[in-house]
């Protein structure tokens, strides 16, 4: 027996949901473009090397892979940031700031965090060539505008800076393997001890303190007092500067801090952030500074950006009650068999006013029954128009 069930983690999108999602995507893309972010597309398929080299390397167990005709390996893209960076570094003239945006699906063979989507839709931006706090502040401000524009209430952008942790770890001879484990624990605010990490002698206290530093801007002062390292202090200074700019824009009410927020330690190089809302149990948006990603392509372009998870966003809006009512095929025009020509021109005339007209071919009774079944607001029978 053939099996027509979809593989796990991929879903069909029904007309109502798709309409809602596309409207949301269009809103984001048009906002991004008004801020100068030009939309790009990239192929879903990519050579393997792009996704296994440098700081952008993806855990191979998370990549969909195929053999190409010449025996080399093809993968499906794991995110849009890497293709965008490839395009910025190898295809576009090096004139900065360079602003790119996208709305597209990416793929994850073995999803772990939250939702079980293996094909996930994101809308996002990448800002290339602005290394200072202005760049981070711009993308965070744009993220706030995007969420406001989508009609989301009760959200905030939770900000951290990976340089704070980097400054602490610069003083410890910790192995790469231990570092990975350590970052997972820090991201989970699970306190660490010297018994687990002997190489962190004397550093567990500031790291544990860092995990507890979340909330309003007072945590920045707390960190200043608790963490003496030079690189950490520079990172804090940068974070304060980003906050100062955002305050100036009038956005402080949307900002909170979590200095224990690291996400991916090797990937991110500065400010990192997540968008969270009361209406959903996982982040709806994530981003940060990734100055070293372009090194994969032999360039050195500072960069920052974010991506909005569209499924999470839709669920949050739904939960908040902001999902518009379905409006499918508002009106049905019933055309008796043999009257196709008259029916066609009548429908065209009605559509001119921007109305949505679906044609039913058959008798008045059949047309009426069909209209009722699909929930059409009015049913007109050709030749009986009011």
């Amino acid at each position, binding site marked *: 027996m053939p099996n027509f069930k979809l593989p796990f983690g991929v879903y069909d999108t029904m007309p109502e949901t798709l309409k809602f999602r596309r409207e949301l995507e269009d809103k984001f893309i048009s906002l991004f473009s008004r801020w100068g972010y030009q939309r790009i597309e990239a192929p879903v398929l990519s050579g393997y090397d792009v996704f296994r080299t440098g700081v952008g390397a993806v855990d191979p167990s998370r990549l969909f892979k195929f053999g190409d005709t010449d025996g080399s390996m093809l993968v499906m893209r794991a995110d849009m940031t890497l293709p965008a960076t490839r395009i910025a570094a190898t295809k576009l003239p090096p004139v900065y700031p360079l602003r790119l945006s996208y709305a597209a699906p990416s793929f994850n063979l073995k999803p772990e965090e939250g939702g079980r989507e293996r094909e996930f839709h994101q809308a996002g931006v990448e800002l290339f060539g602005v290394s200072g706090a202005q760049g981070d502040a711009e993308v965070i401000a744009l993220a706030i505008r995007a969420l406001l524009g989508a009609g989301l209430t009760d959200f905030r952008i939770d900000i951290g800076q990976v340089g704070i942790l980097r400054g602490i770890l610069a003083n410890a001879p910790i192995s790469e393997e231990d570092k990975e484990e350590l970052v997972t624990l820090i991201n989970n605010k*699970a306190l660490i001890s010297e018994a687990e990490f002997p190489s962190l002698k004397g550093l567990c206290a500031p790291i544990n303190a860092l995990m507890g530093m979340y909330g309003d801007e007072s945590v920045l002062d707390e960190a200043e007092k608790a963490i003496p390292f030079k690189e950490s202090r520079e990172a804090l200074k940068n974070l304060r500067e980003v906050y100062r700019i955002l305050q100036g824009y009038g956005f402080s009410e949307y900002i909170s801090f979590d200095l224990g927020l690291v996400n991916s330690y090797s990937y991110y190089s500065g400010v990192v952030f997540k968008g969270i809302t*009361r209406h959903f149990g996982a982040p709806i948006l994530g981003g940060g500074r990734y100055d070293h990603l372009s090194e994969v392509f032999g360039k050195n372009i500072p960069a920052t950006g974010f991506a909005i998870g569209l499924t999470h966003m839709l669920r949050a809006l739904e939960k908040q009650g902001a999902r518009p009512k379905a409006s499918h095929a508002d009106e049905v025009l019933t055309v008796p068999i043999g009257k196709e020509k008259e029916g066609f021109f009548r429908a065209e005339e009605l559509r001119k006013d921007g109305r949505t007209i679906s044609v039913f071919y058959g008798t008045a009774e059949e047309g009426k029954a069909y209209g009722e079944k699909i929930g059409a607001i009015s049913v007109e029978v050709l030749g009986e128009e009011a």
Partner: protein
Amino acid sequence: MSTVTVALAKGRLAEKAIELFETCGMDCRSLKEPTRKLVLADESGKFQFIFVKPTDVPIYVENGVADMGICGKDTLLEEDKSVFEMLDLGWGKCKLCIAGYPDIDIDGMNTLRVATKYVRVAEKYFAKREQNIEILKLSGSIELGPVIGLSDVILDIVESGKTLKENGLVVLRDVAESSARLIVNKVSLKTKQDVIRPLVAKMKEGNAL
């Protein structure tokens, strides 16, 4: 103010947890009455409790349908969910161990057969040591594995070691230590911080008593 939902593992951990919540000033009378209800509220109505299978606590919390929960570290290691692990409550202490007959040479086996509930923990532990294993997933009476010849060793929690001893088995390796943990959803900690943060602080204090 929105309600905070707490997921508790049915059984001993839940009893200890309710005691702790009472120390923190919560009126938990309704939770102690015998009932088959799976969702209960405290007297103030600010908190709602759901009672779930111990291994399911992390998934409720990760998805945010429960804002916080209490479960063993062994469950967290096995389920590997993205949640904040806020407090080590210290109770329910046990060890995850590899056990078997005393004469078995673990490293000398070509393919070691491991009976366990902790499939992910076992895979990770032996992958790190580059040892080939065959996992036999069981959901109870794990000790039977080596006794009846299903497996060479087991990977399981050991509290007193009594069951092992009575079956002639010994602890061969310690894998990890476990105790009850307070876990919190990564978004709820921030969006409901007015309720959750003071509660976590009180629980830390109350637990130390």
